[in-house]
């Protein structure tokens, strides 16, 4: 059991536990919160893999994933704000 195994296993297990809220969430905002949490955990897994396996390209992938996740969260929450009311 090295440190890389422990970190990546714990993060992966908790990310798949948060998937419960994505599937059974009562409202759309619950699903949005859980997706935000999972994307944050995936960024952590990418950075840990980049450090422990000496792959520098994973850090750029993690940065781009963080930017796209942030923009999508903002866009979906602005969409849910006016959904069904006819306003923009």
């Amino acid at each position, binding site marked *: 059991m090295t440190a890389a195994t422990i*970190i990546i296993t*714990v*993060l992966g297990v*908790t*990310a798949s*536990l*948060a998937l*419960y*809220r994505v599937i059974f969430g009562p*409202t759309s*905002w*619950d699903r*949005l*919160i*859980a997706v*935000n*949490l999972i994307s*944050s*955990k995936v*960024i*952590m897994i990418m*950075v*840990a893999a*980049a*450090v422990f396996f000496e792959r*520098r390209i994973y*850090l*750029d992938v*993690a*940065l781009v994933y*963080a*930017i796209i996740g*942030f923009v999508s*969260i*903002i866009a979906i*929450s*602005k969409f*849910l*704000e006016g*959904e069904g009311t006819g306003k923009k």
Partner: protein
Amino acid sequence: MFFGTLGIIRFPDIYTRLQTSSKCDAAGAVAILVGLMVREGLNSFSLRILIILIFLLLTNPVATHAIARSAAIRGIKPWIKKKNVKGE
């Protein structure tokens, strides 16, 4: 990071889930990334991890606030503990 997922699964309301998710993102991500930076030492590798860390610190509260604002505008009421009927 584990307790953030536990709060996501167990808590009864959007706003409480949002609070645990935000704490998990901020504190857990900062701890893991600072630990990896210290392990790596001073080079361009840890500089990129610092960039990801600053980006996460800037964007996570913004995403959390956007989700809470859209839920509040659509009229989601905060969860209130039910009163004990027999005691009154």
